[in-house]
């Protein structure tokens, strides 16, 4: 399903780009009316190319420079596709595929947003159309193959020319060994011309080009312009084929050749019979006119036209130069152009949000991991997971203890209009900050910055001004209520140490707890804010003693209904089992689901929610 929608969006993107090129080719064709048709035939290569290749090379010469780059998607906007993917997955399997790195709006009532429904319906309709057309054409291909099965050799010495009374127009048929099939009873006057024409088709491999073009048409069947292109391309193919015959045999055969075309112009019930996999002949009137007017161009004119056509082709096939793709400008580590280009009103625009995050500097040794977007309900949030790969990243002056993440968060608040909360989580391979996370709310940032940071996102100058201000800003880490993760951890740690001091003689953890009601009460009152520290202590492993037993009791008290049934006295094992349980339901459902149903338990996943 996902891949289908991705493919569909790529196809729609290619179709849009190809439409611009097609319009260009159609216009130029009009100018080339008096020029040998081989040139317009060649021009279709540009459209062909656009329909096959999602990407291309960039060049200043690209005609598409006149079209706004925004109008030339190589695929539909990523958000749209991802919204589709996420929600469809959710609707079908009840999971959100995290591989795309975001969680997008799930329509609370339907479970699927109208946008993604549209995407799904669109790709379904498209693939159905492709299938129907394919099957219909394969069917008519075999129908013709059956008809010409009994075709007989015209002449035993010409092994590739057959005649049969089952067909009404001459055509070339076959992919590997193309053969010419003639309707029975072509008169000897027409025969040489018909054969000459069909032989040129074979020489030029038109019998392969036409089906290939038709296959592309099937893929782009929803684009009416492509049907027009196909018809015009076939016309150009036939006409340039006629011209080649005249060029080879000489001007003097024009009259006879035209007569032959006329003689063979049978009224066909062609619509149902015509198959692009065989060569029918069509639009006789225009072809005869073209034959009569055809003059073999002078060598230098021919050369000039070739040069012009080549230039046109490059113009059509090249992609416009994208301002941001080359010479990315940065300002104190921030890719300001990219930041401005990806400014977005909505958290839900995953591709833009991710582009913003990635346009900001990170301390050495830290890599961005998954990004999650909370867009289903307020507060709309962005959660960025980072992975710390070496210890120096933490202690370095511009490392994690510096305020690089705060600065980045403030910029996100400036550039993503409706984001209300930004969470940062760490997975730490060095173990020091494992599971650390902190959040910033817009109100807190506005407090610190004394105003709305969004006002800085209007232009480059303003944005640079904001970046300048940031270097002197320091926002304390912490939850939105001002309590910091570190504070909380210390609070729990102190209480726990105190509880463990007495009564030293006992081995029953409840004796310790009963001896320190105030400390126990403090921890219980902290509720889920106490859990990150407790979980992180368990995460170190080996908590099988008194501390482990106390921590287990406290954790399970706080978790309450989110706890699991567990009946053993191995405290570390309770933690491991509970973590496994949360991981399993996360895999089965989704992180979002777990956050909704296990708001406390989900904290056990700390910063390694991958």
């Amino acid at each position, binding site marked *: 399903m996902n891949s289908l929608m991705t493919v569909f969006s790529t196809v729609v993107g290619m179709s849009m780009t190809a439409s611009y090129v097609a319009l260009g080719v159609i216009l130029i064709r009009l100018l080339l009316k008096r020029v040998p048709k081989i040139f317009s035939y060649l021009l279709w290569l540009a459209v062909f190319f656009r329909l096959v290749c999602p990407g291309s090379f960039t060049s200043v010469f690209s005609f598409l420079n006149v079209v706004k780059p925004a109008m030339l998607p190589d695929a539909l906007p990523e958000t749209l596709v991802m919204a589709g993917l996420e929600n469809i997955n959710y609707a079908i399997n009840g999971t959100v595929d995290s591989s795309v790195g975001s969680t997008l709006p799930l329509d609370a009532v339907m479970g699927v947003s109208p946008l993604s429904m549209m995407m799904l319906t669109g790709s379904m309709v498209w693939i159905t159309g492709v299938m129907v057309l394919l099957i219909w054409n394969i069917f008519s291909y075999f129908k013709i193959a059956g008809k010409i*099965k*009994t*075709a*007989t*050799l015209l002449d*035993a010495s010409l*092994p590739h020319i*057959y*005649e*049969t*009374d*089952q067909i009404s127009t001459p055509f070339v048929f076959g992919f590997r060994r193309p053969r010419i099939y003639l309707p*029975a*009873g072509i008169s000897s006057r027409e025969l040489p011309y018909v054969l000459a024409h069909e032989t040129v088709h074979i020489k030029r491999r038109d019998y392969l080009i036409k089906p290939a073009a038709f296959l592309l048409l099937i893929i782009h069947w929803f684009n009416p312009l492509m049907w027009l292109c196909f018809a015009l391309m076939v016309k150009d193919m036939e006409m340039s084929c006629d011209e080649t015959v005249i060029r080879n045999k000489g001007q003097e055969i024009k009259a006879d050749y035209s007569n032959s075309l006329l003689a063979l112009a049978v009224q066909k019930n062609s619509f149902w019979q015509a198959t692009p996999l065989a060569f029918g002949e069509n639009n006789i009137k225009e072809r005869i006119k073209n034959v009569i007017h055809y003059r073999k161009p002078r060598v230098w004119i021919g050369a000039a036209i070739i040069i012009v056509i080549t230039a046109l082709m490059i113009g059509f096939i090249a992609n416009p130069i994208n301002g941001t793709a080359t010479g990315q400008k940065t300002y104190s580590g921030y890719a300001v152009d990219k930041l401005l280009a990806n400014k977005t009103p909505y958290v839900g625009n995953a591709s833009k949000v991710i582009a913003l995050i990635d346009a900001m500097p990170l301390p050495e040794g830290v890599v961005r991991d998954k990004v999650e977007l909370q867009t289903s309900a307020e507060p709309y949030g962005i959660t960025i997971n980072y992975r710390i790969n070496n210890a120096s990243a933490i202690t370095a002056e511009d490392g994690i203890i510096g305020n690089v993440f705060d600065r980045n968060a403030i910029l996100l608040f400036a550039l993503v209009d409706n984001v209300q909360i930004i969470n940062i989580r760490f997975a730490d391979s060095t173990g020091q900050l494992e599971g650390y996370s902190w959040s910033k709310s817009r109100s807190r940032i506005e407090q610190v910055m004394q105003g709305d940071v969004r006002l800085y996102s209007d232009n480059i100058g303003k944005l640079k001004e904001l970046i300048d201000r940031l270097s002197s800003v320091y926002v304390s880490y912490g939850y939105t209520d001002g309590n910091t993760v570190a504070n909380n951890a210390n609070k729990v740690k102190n209480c726990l140490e105190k509880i463990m001091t007495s009564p030293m003689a006992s081995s029953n953890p409840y004796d310790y707890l009963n001896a320190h009601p105030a400390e126990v009460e403090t921890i219980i009152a902290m509720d889920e804010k106490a859990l990150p520290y407790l979980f992180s202590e368990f995460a170190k492993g080996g908590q099988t003693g008194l501390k482990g037993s106390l921590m287990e009791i406290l954790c399970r008290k706080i978790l309450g209904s989110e706890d699991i049934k567990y009946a053993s006295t191995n405290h570390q094992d309770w933690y491991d089992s509970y973590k496994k349980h949360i991981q399993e339901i996360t895999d089965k459902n989704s992180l979002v689901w777990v956050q909704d149903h296990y708001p406390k338990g989900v904290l056990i996943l700390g910063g390694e929610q991958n």
Partner: protein
Amino acid sequence: MENYKLFDAEYKFVSIVWEKEPVNSTELARLSLERLGWKKSTTYTVLRKLCERGILDNADAVVTSLVKKEEVQKYESQSLIEKNFEGSLPQFLTAFLDRKKLTAKEAEELKRIIEEAMQ
């Protein structure tokens, strides 16, 4: 009578049989490949159909014709005149001779045929 209607390809095939009969079916397949460009399977399919219609006979891999060339030609020319000249022989002859110059010998023969038909 209708089963004398032969398609172009069938007529060519039956012509080989008329020329070579009685002919071994393997030999017939070889001749069809050589003269008509047919695969062996096509030859056997067409042969089977013509046997079913009672035009050819295939007994122990020896093929013979059950319908003679003259009969088929007679049927063909009749249905041609029926279809295109409302069954009128003079109309057909006029149209036919319009495009074709007759040799003296052919004219003589035609005259004789017409006289015989008048009696």
